[in-house]
C-alpha cells in the first residue's frame, strides 16, 4: 500500500518509491532515480509525475523541474515504444557511428529526436554510452547492441518491430 493515496504509478513502482524515500540520509537523494523510474513507467516524466514526486519528497514542483531539465536521459514528452539511441562520439564515429545514424534515419524515415508515425520507434543521436570498445554501439531503451553494421542494425530493428527485442528495465 503506497504512502501516497491514488498514486499514478504502478503498484510496484509506488512501492519502490515508498522505500526509496526512506533509504537515504536526506530524502531528496531519491529524486534522480525516482524521475528515471517514473519515466520507465509512463514513457516520460509527466506533469502528474512531477507533482507526485514533489509531494513524496517534500519538494516544490519547481525544484523537481529544475533537476529534471538538467539530465539528458529525462524527457517531458512521450517517445516511441523503442527509443533508438545511436552513439556518434569519437570511438563509435571511427567505426561507423555516423553511417549507422544515417542508415537509421533512412530506414525509419525520421530524424534526430523524431518518432515514427506508428509510434514504434524514436531516433536519437547520443553522446558516449560507454561501449567504446564494441563500437559502433546503439542503445534501444536500456538494451545495448554492439559492433553493429547497417545490416545488423536492420536485424535489431526487425527484432523489436516483431516483438522479439529485449526490454531491459
Amino acid at each position, binding site marked *: 500500500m503506497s504512502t501516497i493515496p491514488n498514486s499514478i504509478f504502478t503498484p510496484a513502482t509506488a512501492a519502490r518509491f515508498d522505500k526509496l524515500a526512506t*533509504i*537515504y*540520509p*536526506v530524502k*531528496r*537523494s*531519491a*529524486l*534522480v*532515480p525516482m*524521475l*528515471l523510474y517514473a519515466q520507465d513507467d509512463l514513457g516520460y516524466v509527466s506533469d502528474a509525475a512531477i507533482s507526485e514526486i514533489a509531494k513524496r*519528497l517534500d519538494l516544490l514542483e519547481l525544484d523537481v523541474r*529544475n*533537476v529534471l531539465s*538538467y*539530465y*539528458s*536521459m*529525462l524527457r517531458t514528452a512521450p517517445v516511441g515504444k523503442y527509443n533508438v539511441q545511436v552513439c*556518434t*562520439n*569519437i*570511438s563509435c*564515429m*571511427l*567505426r561507423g557511428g*555516423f*553511417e549507422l545514424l544515417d542508415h537509421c534515419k533512412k530506414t525509419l524515415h525520421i*530524424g*534526430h529526436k523524431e518518432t515514427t508515425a506508428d509510434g514504434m520507434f524514436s531516433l536519437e*543521436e*547520443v*553522446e*558516449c*554510452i*560507454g*561501449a*567504446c*570498445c*564494441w*563500437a559502433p554501439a546503439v*542503445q534501444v531503451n*536500456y*538494451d*545495448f547492441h*554492439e*559492433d553493429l553494421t547497417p545490416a545488423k542494425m536492420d536485424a535489431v530493428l526487425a527484432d523489436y518491430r516483431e516483438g522479439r527485442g529485449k526490454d*531491459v*528495465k
Partner: protein
Amino acid sequence: MPTLVSHPDEVKVVSRRFGMGATDIDKYIELDGYKAVQKAIENGPEWIVNEMKASGLRGRGGAGFPTGMKWSFVPKVSEKPKYVLVNGDESEPGTCKDHVLFLHDPHSVIEGTMIAGLAIGSKVGFIYLRGEYRYLLKIVEKAVADAYAKGYLGKNIFGKEGVDFDIITQTGAGAYEVGEESALMESLEGKRGVPRIKPPFPAVVGLYGGPTVINNAETIANAPHILLMGGEAYAKLGSERNGGTRLFGISGHVERPGVYELPMGYSMRDAIYKVAGGIKDGKKLKAVVPGGSSCPVLKADEIDVGLDFDQMAKAGTMLGSGGIVVLDESVSIVEFALRTIRFYQHESCGWCIPCREGTDWIKKTLTRFHAGGGNKKDIDNIQYLAENMMGRTFCPLGDAAAMPTLGFVKKFRSEFEEYLEGKRVEHPLIQITPIGEPALAGAH
C-alpha cells in the same frame, strides 16, 4: 554483450575473475572473495591505509591521485557521518572499463567499498552508476542483496560485534559532468550536477556535509586484491610511483579493440600493435587520443611512451581514464576536433562562464570551418579561446574541452590550413545537427 578479450601480455589483477561467473556470490567467495575485507577487519584502519599507500595505487578515474593518501586525509573524528562514494558514472568518451568491471565482478567493487569504509571509519557506502548502465545497476543491486543475505553487509558484518556497513546503489540520468566528484555529490543529493568550489575537499566536507572518500570504481575494486597480495607486491607490478596494473580500453581503428589489463608503464606502442593487434585493415597510424577524449592527442611518432601517469605527463598528455582511442590515416583531424568539442559543448553544465561560452564559441567556429566557411584567423581564435578556458573553471570540464582542442590545432595546424585550401574530406561525417539543439545557422 561486450566481448571479452585476452592477450598473453596482460597481468590480470582486477580482471582476474572476468568471465568466471563471479557475479554469483558463491563463485566470488570460491575465488578468494570477501577474504580481504575480513583481513581488513582484523588488522584495522591504520594497516589498511598503510598497505594502500605501499601499493602505489593512483586514482583510475583519470586524476591519478594516490589512493592511500586520499584515504588518510579523512579526519579520524567527525561529528557528521563519514561516507564512501564509488564513482561509476563512467562517461569520458573512449572509456568503458568500469562497464566490464560491473558486468563481471560487481562483488569486488562492493568488497572494496567496505574496505574503504573500514579504513576511514564510515558505515555507509554509495555506488553511483551512470543512468545508461541500467542492466549493470541490476547486476550490482543483486550482488548487494546477496551480500546482505550472507551477513556481509548490514549490522555486525561477518559476525563481528559493532562492525556495521551498508551499501546504497544509485543511478544517474545522463550527464557527463556528474563524473566530476563534487558534481556527483550534488547529483546524489538530488540536485543539478554542478560542481562545488574546492576547498573544502570532499575528505573534509563531502556528501551531506560529511567527510567523504570518493573513488573510481576500478580504484575501489583494486583494494581487496592489494590487501590479499600485499601493497608492496602490488606496487612491483607497475612502474616507479605508479603501482600495479590498470584496465585499458583500446578502441577506434585497431584490429582487436577491447578492455585489457596491462601493467602500469607498459609501452603504448605495444598496447596498440601487439595487444590490440595493430591498425585495422593494414592502414597507417595517424594519431592516438591516449586516455579518453579530454587528453591531448599524440602523433604517430609520439607513441613510444610508457603508459603511466608520470611518463604520459612528460610526453605532454595524460593517462586519464585509460581509454586509448586510435585514429588511422583516413581520419580528418578537423572533423575529429569538431566531434570532440561538440561533446564538451553539449555537456558543459553552464555553471562557469569560460567553459559555457568557450566550448560554444569553439564549436561554432569549428562547425563553420568544417562546413567550408573558415579562414586562417579562425585557427588562432580557436587556440586563443581554448587557452583562455584553461584553469578558469570550478571543475576540470573546461580544461577537458580546452586540452584536446589545443592539441589538435597545435599538432595538426598544417592540416587545418590545408583544409582551408580545399583539401577537405570528401564525405563529411558530421552534418550540422548538433545534439540537443536546432541546426546552427551557418557563419556569424
